[in-house]
């Protein structure tokens, strides 16, 4: 099972290289951080929780294989109807694409076109995505959260201290790295208007820094740095910031998530709106990732403690 997860990680890397080769920088960025990084980690945690070997197959694998072959064949057959790669009269290039490409600089004033499409033209879709992520966090909390006994903390402390000698080199290297990781996350967050990046990627990078800390210094130590209530508050706060930007623009006389009315100058309003909602997205993504990781690891530690084994 570990091998399967690792090959999935390689698949993510290959996918992202493919996006790079196709010149889709933002997509490659997202695929790199989410597809290859965080989802591999979460799958691994799941595997570590449920066990590494799967049970004897009770169903017939042949049926599933045939279904996969038939679906793949149909999909390939479907591509014959698609226009050729790079042809100018494809439907994609006829609809709203030219408008986004030619007018977004004047209307939004943000050099990175992907950011303006994501955050301004399609702001409502992105709001939906953030809400989905938030809901996922709530679901994980509801299913997997473990009621912690107060004396657990002291035990955690002792375990952490005992582990301090164990990964000495890694700990020192990671202590040096974490400030740069967080700094880089902020760079990606606030530079998203100009280069590739934005709230989703920055949130994932920030969460990766915290997860790295949690993996090497123990869950208890990480929970003392960023406590569970704070993370939960932050994940809700991100959605709240996003939604309230929309509400403020409604109160100022525009429609929902219409940033033109946020400031006197429409361009400045767009900048402000995009900055704020990217901040909301980043907050929600980072804290939901941290919540999911905390819950997964906390749950597996809880299982081990119930089996009467120490960490």
């Amino acid at each position, binding site marked *: 099972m570990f091998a399967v997860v690792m090959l999935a990680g390689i698949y993510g890397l290959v996918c992202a290289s493919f996006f790079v080769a196709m010149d889709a920088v933002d997509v490659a960025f997202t695929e790199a951080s989410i597809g290859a990084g965080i989802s591999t980690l979460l799958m691994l945690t799941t595997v570590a929780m449920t066990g590494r070997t799967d049970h004897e197959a009770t169903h017939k694998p042949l049926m599933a294989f045939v279904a996969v072959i038939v679906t793949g064949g149909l999909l390939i057959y479907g591509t014959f109807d698609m226009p050729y790669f790079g042809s100018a009269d494809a439907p994609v290039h006829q609809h709203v694409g030219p408008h986004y490409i030619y007018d977004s600089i004047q209307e939004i004033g943000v050099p990175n076109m992907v950011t303006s499409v994501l955050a301004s033209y399609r702001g409502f879709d992105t709001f939906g995505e953030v809400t989905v992520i938030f809901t996922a966090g709530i679901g994980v909390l509801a299913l997997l959260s473990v009621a912690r006994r107060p004396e657990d903390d002291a035990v955690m402390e002792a375990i952490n201290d005992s582990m301090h000698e164990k*990964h000495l*080199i*890694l700990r020192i*290297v*990671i202590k*040096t*790295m974490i400030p*740069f990781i967080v700094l880089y996350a902020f760079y990606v967050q606030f530079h998203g208007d100009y280069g590739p990046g934005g709230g989703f990627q920055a949130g994932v990078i920030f969460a990766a820094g915290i997860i790295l800390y949690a993996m090497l210094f123990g869950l208890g130590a990480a929970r003392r740095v960023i406590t569970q209530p704070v993370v939960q508050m932050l994940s809700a706060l991100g959605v709240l910031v996003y939604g309230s930007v929309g509400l403020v623009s409604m109160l100022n006389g525009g429609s929902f998530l219409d940033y033109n009315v946020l400031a006197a100058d429409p361009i400045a309003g767009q900048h402000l709106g995009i900055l704020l909602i990217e901040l909301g997205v980043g907050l929600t993504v980072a804290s939901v990732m941290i919540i999911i990781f905390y819950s997964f690891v906390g749950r597996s530690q809880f299982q081990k403690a119930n089996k009467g084994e120490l960490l």
Partner: protein
Amino acid sequence: MDTVLTLLSSFCLLFGSFLCLSGGVGILRFPDFYTRMHAVGVTDTLAAAMILIGLMLQNPDLLVIIKLMMILLMTLFISPAASHALGQAAVLNKLQPLINMNINPLEEDTSAGDKSSKS
């Protein structure tokens, strides 16, 4: 000046690609995990450094050079740490290195010496 830079950068790039390739051959051909780790560890750092330095010499833009240097520093920090963690985990989980006299005591001395000198 320009030609010197170009020559230097081509030399760095070529040397880096040669090291890359030798590491790739090493990861395929070496007999057990620890020797493979040796191949990867040696080439990962030096090959990456060489290629990145070669790229640095090609570009006059300061921001690009700084970014490349960040990548280089990160690689130099991360790659040995990851190798260390990997090797430590393998030792702790009792993955046996391939030592010829333990595994094949019946083989002749010549082949054993041959193999150990290769690894």
